């Protein structure tokens, strides 16, 4: 073989893959061509390990306009001639190396995916995972990531309305930084990313091309993480001002008929942008890299083709319209270059001052080998799942410290310290700001609103990847339902270890199967997504962490529901039930309580998807009929934390006097899914009971709203200020 194993390693290709390339080309690739294969056949661009599994996820539905994989983002119809464009993407490895720029450019990249389709970006969300804040490096990563998101997101005028942050030792070496963007477009103005029309011109706009980010896709995103600190040059630096200009400019151009396609330059830069555009349209492209504006002298073709310099867009301009497009660019004082044109021969041809330096079939470049592996259940899993939790002591009669400790745990405490650094009001659509089960944004000019959330519990998936995957989907949907929205579609980001390992492959496969099952039962399609594999260091993978970004729709923005208790005398109820209500120790499986108080990660979380569907239907109908005054999902920290949060947010007390069976810790702190804490006016109770019964949903009366204390008979009696102080101050305290 004329290429060394080290050289192949650098671009994350195997020797077998190299042989396959030679066989398909009928010759040896030159170094530039090999680099292009490395990028396009990487997991990040080519999904070679994940694609066969991703196909298991339901992707169709009456509202799906653009299914996954077809374009830069998924698109769903929300009626009134409008569509929502949505996508989530990881920037884990760059953020681990340089948290501020890594996270900032993650935001930049996902936003470009949205406006590349002609949609105005209207909301950002972030799903973040770090190691415990007690460690200095984790604090550095956390503060850097939040700072980067804040700096970039605030500057481009897109509100950052939600997300989650969780801390676990599993993420210490390998934080997860997933960014989601949602945009709005008139359906008829959707722009595709195809290089259509022979002779049409390829125009590059935005930043000049530099040496930054070379091998981002293949090197950083598609292998494990041993020599990470040597890869600093693979992280790019963002320019949010230029991004903001690009948003306005591209939306203006998208509104004309001068173009046939728009594509952002993300992972693998010019290589993937041009080749994927050609692949989508079934065409070919010729580009002359001598025409590409450079940031520095002396760059070779390889560097130009694989640079991941940020804030660049490729516009497919109709021949003859180039001057009109240039006139728009001039208004914004933005330079541009015509770097090539569309052909019909199916080849990606790269020239350097007219001389051919690479010539490969688009079809071969975009058809990586797909691997369907055999997953093997890890040996450690069964013992963890069958761990007997009966021996743990139940909650004592006076358990104030347990509750306060949970409320101040960074996983449960208020995330205001983070989201107050993000502009969440700009664009004047934010009806429910961050801090709720889901964010709600009105759609101007209609009665509608959309609700947005991200969810994913790595600990559940670690203990049971199948149910954990299902629970992530169920919880995201439940969050939307609690705000009064009908779930519409999912964009998912799958954060896993090295899929070439059978135990990790097992987790990936099981998790996708669980997600698929929940999507089927709850009837929510997956319209876009991203996989981030190889999240591991020294053989230790992160918790398998699927992050579910979900969009729902509120038909009438006046029928939204919030989580805070409202008025004295309202009745508090638990809608739904799980193992927790049976008071059995297995209800504590995978709970925050178990890890925080007993330092145990064990048990087997489960979910009854049919009950979940009924609970969600009942809750949504009750909200739409105006019966509920509050609704809040029971999740991390279980029933007790849900009740406490409803008190804190509503600034009003709660007194609970229901009869508990079995273990009190299971009832109060178990995290069984399919449960919602709701409150109603007394005169609506009978109606709700009737509705719950007809839906086949258990309904239990817990107590009443009122006063300024948090009371659960025989266990807790605390002033509201005390629990509020723990919850509001927990995160800042952990930062020291």
């Amino acid at each position, binding site marked *: 073989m004329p290429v060394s194993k080290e050289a192949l390693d650098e671009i994350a290709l195997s020797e077998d893959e190299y042989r396959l390339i030679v066989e398909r080309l009928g010759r040896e690739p030159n170094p530039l061509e090999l680099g292009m294969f490395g990028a396009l056949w990487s997991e990040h661009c080519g999904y070679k390990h994940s694609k066969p599994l991703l196909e298991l996820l339901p992707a169709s539905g009456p509202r799906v306009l653009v299914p996954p994989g077809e374009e830069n983002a998924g698109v769903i119809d929300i009626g009134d001639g409008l569509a929502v464009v949505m996508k989530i993407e990881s920037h884990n490895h760059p953020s681990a190396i340089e948290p501020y720029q890594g996270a900032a450019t993650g935001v930049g990249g996902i936003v470009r995916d949205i406006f590349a389709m002609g949609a105005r970006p209207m909301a950002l969300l972030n799903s973040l995972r770090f190691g415990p804040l007690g460690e200095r490096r984790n604090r550095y990563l956390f503060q850097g990531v939040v700072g980067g998101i*804040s*700096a970039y997101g*605030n*500057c*481009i*005028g897109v509100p950052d309305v939600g997300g989650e942050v969780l801390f676990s030792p599993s993420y210490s070496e390998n934080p997860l930084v997933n960014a989601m963007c949602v945009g709005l477009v008139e359906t008829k103005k959707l722009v595709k990313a195809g290089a259509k029309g022979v002779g049409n011109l390829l125009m590059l706009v935005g930043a000049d091309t530099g040496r930054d980010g070379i091998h981002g896709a293949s090197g950083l995103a598609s292998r494990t993480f041993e020599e990470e600190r040597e890869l600093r040059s693979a992280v790019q630096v963002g*320019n*949010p*001002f*230029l991004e*903001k*200009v690009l948003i306005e400019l591209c939306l203006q151009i998208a509104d004309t008929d001068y173009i046939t396609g728009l594509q952002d330059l993300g992972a693998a830069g010019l290589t993937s942008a041009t080749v994927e555009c050609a692949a989508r349209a079934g065409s070919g492209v010729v580009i002359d890299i001598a025409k590409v504006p450079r940031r520095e002298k002396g760059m070779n073709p390889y560097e130009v083709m694989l640079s991941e310099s940020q804030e660049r867009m490729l516009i497919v301009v109709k021949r003859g319209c180039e001057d009109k497009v240039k006139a728009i660019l001039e*208004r*914004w*004082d933005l330079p541009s270059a015509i770097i090539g044109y569309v052909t019909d021969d199916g080849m990606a041809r790269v020239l350097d001052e007219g001389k051919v330096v690479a010539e490969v079939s688009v079809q071969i470049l975009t058809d990586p080998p797909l691997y369907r592996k055999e997953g093997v259940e890890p040996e450690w899993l069964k013992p963890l799942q069958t761990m007997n939790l009966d021996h743990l002591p139940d909650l004592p009669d006076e358990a104030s410290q347990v509750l306060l400790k949970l409320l101040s745990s960074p996983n449960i405490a208020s995330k205001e310290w983070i*989201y*107050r*650094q*993000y*502009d*969440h*009001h*700009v*664009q*004047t*659509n*934010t*009806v429910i*700001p961050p801090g709720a089960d889901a964010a709600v944004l*009105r759609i*101007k000019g209609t009665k509608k609103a959309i609700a947005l959330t991200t969810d994913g519990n790595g600990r559940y998936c670690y203990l049971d990847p199948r149910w954990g995957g299902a629970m992530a989907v169920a919880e995201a949907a439940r969050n939307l339902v609690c705000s009064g929205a009908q779930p519409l579609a999912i964009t998912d980001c799958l954060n896993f270890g090295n899929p070439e390992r059978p135990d990790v492959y097992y987790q990936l496969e099981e998790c996708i199967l669980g997600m698929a099952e929940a999507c089927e039962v709850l009837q929510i399609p997956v319209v876009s997504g991203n996989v981030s594999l190889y999240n591991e260091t020294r053989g230790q993978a992160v918790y398998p962490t699927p992050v579910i970004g979900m969009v729902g729709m509120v038909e009438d*923005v006046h029928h939204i529901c919030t989580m805070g208790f409202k008025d004295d005398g309202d009745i508090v109820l638990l809608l739904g039930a799980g193992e927790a209500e049976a008071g059995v120790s297995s209800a504590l499986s995978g709970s925050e309580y178990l890890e925080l108080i007993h330092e145990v990660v064990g048990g087997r979380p489960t979910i009854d998807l049919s009950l979940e569907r009924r609970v969600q239907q009942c809750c949504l109908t009750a909200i739409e009929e105006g019966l509920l005054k509050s609704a809040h999902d029971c999740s991390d920290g279980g029933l007790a934390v849900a009740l406490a949060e409803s008190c804190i947010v509503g600034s009003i007390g709660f007194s609970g006097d229901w009869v508990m069976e079995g273990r009190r810790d299971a009832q109060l702190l178990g995290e069984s899914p399919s449960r919602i804490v709701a409150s109603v006016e007394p005169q609506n109770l009978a109606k709700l009971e009737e509705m719950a019964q007809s839906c086949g949903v258990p309904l239990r009366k817990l107590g009443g709203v009122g006063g300024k204390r948090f009371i659960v008979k025989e266990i807790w009696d605390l002033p509201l200020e005390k629990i509020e102080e723990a919850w509001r101050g927990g995160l800042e305290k952990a930062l020291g």
Partner: protein
Amino acid sequence: MRFGVIVFPGTYSDGDCYHVLERVFYQKVEYVWHKETNLSDYDCLILPGGFSYGDYLRTGAIARFSPVMGEVENFAAQGKLVLGICNGFQTLCEAGLLPGALIRNSHLQFRCQWTHLRVDNTSTPFSQACSPGQVLRIPMAHGEGFYYADEATLMELEEEGRIVFRYSSPSGEITQDANPNGSLRNIAGIVNKEGNVLGMMPHPERSCEEMLGGADGRFIFESILDYVIHKVS
């Protein structure tokens, strides 16, 4: 009346101001590109929030050199109304149309939150719909909103009643706890000597509809409308 909303590259509250003026107050409103030099059509100009030119050198420091700014100065000199919000306030200070400067928040973080503003002067065109001492609840979102000026300027502002809004507690007390960014004397908004140019850091356009959490921002736009309509008639 006719409003002009000035747009620099990097401005992002232009659409929000436009929306409020058109859809909440039913006024005529146009975007004014920063290269425009004819402002004769407008009764009131708004310099909206954003990060003009990325605020890369200093907030508003590059925007003040945009062609439109010379005309904004002439416009103000004619006694017409100019309202600078957030980045607009910063730009007006850089351009010398308002005294002082907006520097990095004292805690060094960007901060997006609701604030309470006590109205300390109800005789300006921007606050005449408020009652004396009224407390408005209006959100802010900025990293550089710490109002700074030398002692002599501060004294002058105080004596001439040019401090229109101060960060306060919900009941109107001026305390350090209520100060979200370290601003000297809790200053949130000031007017020029003539009273026709106002700069404020919080965003009234984000609080004109109850659905968005509060509508106290309306007092500012209603003041402007009353003033101009009264003046014209």
